[in-house]
């Protein structure tokens, strides 16, 4: 039964895969940012931040889309005192 429900609710359709792949590729196309660049960006941003404050947990640096515009979304959890 659980398997049956999983099959219905789990959307693994090729349409969903197409959407997921397009989201990634269009974001990169529009900003000209490759996966390599994003890694470098993340690394250097973290270096700068950690020079001043202590970082805790998993920081996240990624490009988000709002309409046809893109923004850099930086989420860095800081260690509390």
């Amino acid at each position, binding site marked *: 039964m659980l398997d049956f*429900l*999983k099959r*219905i*609710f*789990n*959307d693994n*359709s*090729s*349409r*969903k895969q*197409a*959407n997921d*792949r*397009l*989201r990634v*590729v*269009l974001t990169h*196309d*529009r900003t000209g940012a490759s996966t390599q660049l994003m890694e470098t960006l993340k690394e250097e941003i973290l270096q700068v931040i950690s020079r001043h404050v202590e970082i805790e947990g998993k920081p996240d640096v990624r490009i988000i889309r709002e*309409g*046809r515009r893109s923004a850099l979304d930086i989420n860095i959890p800081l260690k509390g005192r």
Partner: protein
Amino acid sequence: MGKNKEKGKVIVVTSGKGGVGKTTTVANISSALARMGHKIVVMDLDIGLKKLDLILGLENRIIYDIVQVIEGECTLKQAMVKDKRFPHLYMLPAAQTRNKDDIKPEQVKVICEQLRPEFDYIIIDCPAGIEQGFRNAIAAADSAIVVTNPEVSAVRDADRIIGMLESAEFKDIKLVVNRLQASMVKSGDMLSIDDLLEHLCIDLLGIVPEDRKVLISTNKGEPIVLNGNSAAGTAFNNIARRMNGEELDFPTFEDDSFWSKLRNLGRNLFPNK
């Protein structure tokens, strides 16, 4: 050309990727607008790879082409081919033995300025690609129609083209989705209209369903809009009516089956699944 007469609109039909149905779209919306009584000229800027004459069935009537006009071998009037089926439709043919670099954006602008007072719409068939041919085709245009298919590579190219049109200060960019198969969208195997609009973020002008009758009409050189009971013909007619200011609802391909409702319910209950 009286002073009060509104000048014709120049519209470029483009896509980035080839084979998505640009020329078919140009031929059909032009025919539909001409049938409504508008004065239309279609300009084929796919120099070296012309198709519009074949799709319109005008290939045997060509005497001169646009490159000859630009190079002064004939007048603009001499090069224009009149469509016998639609008294208000004219075609300015591309040259087949030349290439895209043989004309310049400024020369296309000059031709369009000459045509504007005489026609209601000047519709430009843009070649595939983002190079010189694309720059020629958008140079004189006031607005753009981007044609795409519900397929990842066509959407990616459409996105690139929309970006380039925005950089060129285009404010009016509309989307035509060609070759949609509602049954495949329903079964989860094709991008939906909403998916395409989410990715491309421009206004929708029309949805043309996959239709075998399109190939049949292409074989004959007759625009599908002449076939009143074809799904694609109706869709192209509706696009022309929307361009003309009519507000027509888009057909909904909403999946309202029991299973899809259950699946949506599941997605809402367990969003991360």
